């Protein structure tokens, strides 16, 4: 099974730390990593990160986290950056933003970063929109580990349990990612699957959320970004010779 971590917060400005984080990720058994990058990153910095990943035998995925304040800002960001990054995640800090992100087909991942259950907006209406648009729900497990440190876990786990159950009933794919910015916050995929027991996701679903679901998101976007892509289900197989 190929394991994917779509949110490895390797700092592109500090290559030494990025190297350590990426090497640790490879050691723990991941084969594909997504690193959130700033929208204005230079091509050389991306190639450096890609090179470090390839040296460690990992497939590098470019990811952009959009955290807009209004739906218009989100639409502008999507229009501008969709074709430049392989994975696009919307960080939903308000309900209006969450709804807009869930109904847009260009958004790959819906992220709710708050530990406060009242600021996580993944409810049934959100799931219905996400299910129609093909967006996945991302759960960052480093966030969960930090919730345990600060004793905020009761409400947070209860909310995560509800989100996972809603996602399952609306067939919204769940993606588990580490969200780790330090090597000591990284865990093996099997350990993350064990942690998902805490919010009632069974082991097979958890392993899918660490492998099949994120790999599907990357593959879909790479196919869309390839030169032979025309529309969903339509691609150029062979070009006709001159008339």
């Amino acid at each position, binding site marked *: 099974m190929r394991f994917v971590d779509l949110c490895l917060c390797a700092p592109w400005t500090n290559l030494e730390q990025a190297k350590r984080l990426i090497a640790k990720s490879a050691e*723990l058994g991941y084969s594909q990593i997504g690193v959130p990058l700033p929208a204005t990153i230079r091509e050389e910095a991306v190639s450096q990160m890609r090179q470090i990943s390839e040296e460690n035998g990992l497939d590098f995925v470019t990811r952009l986290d959009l955290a807009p304040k209004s739906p218009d800002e989100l639409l502008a960001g999507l229009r501008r950056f969709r074709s430049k990054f392989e994975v696009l995640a919307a960080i939903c800090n308000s309900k209006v933003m969450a709804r807009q992100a869930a109904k847009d087909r260009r958004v790959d991942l819906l992220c709710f970063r708050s530990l406060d259950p009242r600021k996580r907006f993944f409810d049934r209406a959100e799931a219905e929109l996400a299910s129609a648009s093909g967006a996945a729900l991302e759960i960052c497990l480093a966030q969960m580990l930090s919730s345990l440190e600060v004793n905020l876990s009761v409400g947070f786990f209860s909310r995560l349990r509800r989100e996972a159950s809603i996602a399952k009933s609306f067939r919204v794919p769940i993606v588990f990612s580490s969200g780790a910015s330090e090597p000591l916050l990284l865990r093996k995929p099997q350990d993350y699957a064990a942690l998902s027991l805490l919010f009632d996701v069974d082991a097979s679903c958890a392993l899918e959320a660490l492998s099949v679901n994120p790999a599907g998101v990357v593959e879909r976007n790479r196919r869309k970004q390839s030169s032979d892509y025309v529309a969903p289900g339509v691609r150029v197989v062979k070009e006709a010779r001159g008339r």
Partner: protein
Amino acid sequence: MTRLVRRRYLALKIDSEESLEHKAVSDAIWSAVLRLFGEVGASQAGLFMVRSDTQKGHIVLRCWHKALPMVRAAIASITIIGGKPAAVHVLRVSGTLKALSRKSGSIVGKEGSAHGNVNSHFRKPMKNSPIDMMKK
């Protein structure tokens, strides 16, 4: 004859930049299980530290078969040991100590030492237990 309670042996690797004491490690594992599953859950886990070499960061832990997911979750949730940032990774899980040593080699090898009687959190090994017999 089949045993009434099946056991699982876990080979663990402690990842930390600083050296850790044996007691701090066992306290961290124990408190993680207690924090997540309470006293009833912890009593159903049958936790026992079979071998520990905290200098190398290698530990062999035993638990009951049915409590394995619970113990793995608790181990994965550890972020601090003895006030220092750390992580514990499960390297291998096996049904017997012999199979575990075959799979993970030196981790379970002879250089490790039994620490059943060091920490009161973990049960003392029984006389003539399978582990003692294996050592002979």
